[in-house]
């Protein structure tokens, strides 16, 4: 009986997710169309929808809260300016937005030359002290390990395992074919495994612990 209920639950959940995604797509499409015609408040809704994702994406790239905040704001300004171009190309909005975010982060690294002295910091959460300490240690290790990955592997890991995007979405954002994404994913996970288990040494970055 339990197993039957489990399967029903799985189907129901999948259906719900699918419906929610369709609704979300429609909503985003409508907001993008309104934004493209100059509706600022529609863009405000898009901003609220994607703020967390873009911030997280940037944070894992730059490893610093303040820089991530500044870059996130600039990315949304850039996206507003280029919304007309997006409409013509017809790609999913999220893929387009991540692409802008990625290019902006690359520009940031190029101009500030910060990538050689990357600082990774953690945010305080609202859990208990013990959970916080343990959580922070784990999160710290992971952030450090991700920061050490080559740029494209880092981008892939963030999109797939932190942002939960599927391979199709990642393909659109990164402009890579599925086969290349699969191989890159395997290499990135293998590298992370080695680093997290202590089999690899320091990657030469400076970390800031909070």
């Amino acid at each position: 009986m339990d197993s039957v209920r489990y399967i029903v639950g799985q189907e129901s959940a999948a259906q719900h997710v699918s419906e929610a995604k369709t609704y979300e797509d429609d909503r985003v499409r409508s907001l993008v169309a309104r934004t493209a015609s100059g509706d600022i408040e529609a863009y405000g809704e898009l901003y609220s929808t994607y703020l967390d994702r873009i911030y997280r994406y940037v944070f894992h790239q730059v490893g610093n809260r303040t820089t991530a905040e500044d870059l996130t704001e600039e990315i949304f300004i850039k996206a507003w300016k280029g919304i007309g171009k997006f409409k013509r190309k017809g790609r999913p909005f999220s893929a387009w937005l991540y692409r802008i975010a990625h290019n902006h982060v690359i520009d940031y690294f190029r101009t500030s030359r910060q990538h050689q002295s990357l600082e990774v910091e953690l945010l305080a959460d609202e859990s208990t002290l013990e959970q916080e300490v343990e959580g922070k240690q784990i999160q710290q290790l992971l952030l450090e390990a991700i920061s050490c990955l080559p740029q494209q592997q880092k981008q892939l890991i963030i999109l797939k395992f932190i942002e939960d995007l599927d391979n199709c979405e990642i393909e659109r954002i990164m402009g890579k074919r599925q086969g290349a994404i699969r191989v890159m994913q395997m290499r990135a996970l293998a590298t992370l495994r080695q680093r997290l288990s202590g089999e690899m040494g320091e990657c030469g970055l400076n970390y800031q612990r909070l």
Partner: protein
Amino acid sequence: MRTELSKALDDCLSRISKGESIETCVADFPHLRAQLESLLSTALFISTTPRVSPSERFRTLSKVRLMVRLHERSIGVKATEPPRKAEATVLKVPWRGLVYALIESRALTFVVTFLLLIAIGGSLFMIVSLSSSSQPAALASQCTVSVLSGSVEVQIPGSHTWQRADDGMTLAPGSRVRTAEDSHAVLTFFEGSSIKLEPCTDIEIQRVEHVDERSTEVVLKQWVGKTWHRVVRMIGPGSRYEIHTPSAHALVRGTLFEIEVDETGLTTVRTTEGLVSVSAQDEEVLLPAGQEVTVEFGAPPSEPRAAPPSDTKLIIAVSMPAVASVCDPTGSCIGYLPNGFAFNQITGAQSTSPSEGTQVITIPNPAAGEYSVVLRCIADGTSQVNLACLYKGESVFTHASAHEVTDGSAWLISFALEIEGGEFISAVVDHIEPLGQAPEKIVETELAEASLVPIEPPEETGQPADTERNYTLAVVSSAGGTVAEPGQGVLFYPAGAVVHLIAEPDEGWEFDSWTGNVADRFSPVTTITMNQDQVVTANFVLRD
């Protein structure tokens, strides 16, 4: 092998995301089992790690910022460049000129614009008046940072990163300054105006320049936090001192006021001196001293209301021949220098001019901690220093001392205030010593210096002689009026003296009552008998 492993890994990741276990999936690839388990558990570890999120503060604030920026772009109004065509109108009614220019450009649906304007002729006794004849022909347009306490950071134009601000650093337009918790800073502009930044404040310097020989422009953007402005009176008709907040624009021509912007863009303006005009969404209200107004995002200004009274008040009175300044525990100072230079970095505080004989410095809601009073002496003589801590108009602690001083000497008096739950616990005057390093962090600009009038010792008057003093009378008033007789400040009388008191309301206000041991609390003309140290407050209310 690599291709096979990468395909199997991707297949398992997909299946696991749909609810399958690692074991079930790996069982389908027995020859890759060890490698797959290792990679899949790593992937699972990453997926289950707590997610990083932006802070609520950033979430709210950044959206407000974005909306404002987009509106500025969409309606073609550059915050840093007020419409030039409005300037001819500015001579007469500047706030209307700017509002009309904005309205003409496009109907404003989201951005609220409100303008503050000091009414001509407002009583501004802290203002350093600028003389056109003494203005140098060419001056550097600049803004200087003074770090009073804690951590202050600046972002220079074109940079993505914040760097530590150093004392005396000069900032160009486009720079941003922010203060951390428990941190305070002062920005001083070339024309003499200054802004004190309270903790957690973020401000952007958009424009600092000479418009022409007589006129200057300072344009700022206050993103969040609390600022205290001391704006010098501007003589050139094209002069402008303008502050933008996420929901508002503020245009000022000389006053003491504070602006508070919260994370939703809600702006509160509180005037300490002068009369201010506040406009938003084509609605205008007048904001006299002691009043405050709020502007919500997308709404017109609220009705002006009396600013919340400060339960605690610190009054320091210093008589000639000393010119005084007071520094609070955050390093913020208020007072005068003997050359006539005035400064005010303490939110809500006021100081009378030493030229009046007794300089009275009033600090509302004083912070607990160490204070210092600096006495700079401009003649030989005896300087009286009186300190009074008031709670709801009643004297809690008083301290009086007299100091024989010589011309050119300088002294430092330290005292500590203990305050708990908004009430004074103790006030301890530690010691007086010759002044070493001056505690004030002030920037005397070239333009401000050019207009200074050195303070001269007053001529002898018929005031009660110091030697006859037995008791202290502190006379203060609420917003809306003054005590005309015997005048405001700290005065000294022999035991048993009967002092006449006359309260005079400002226009639009009426006398309400006295606080203190007066003969008749509800008469504007009454007396008080000096049988102890006394504090008397005249209270005024807005006329209906």
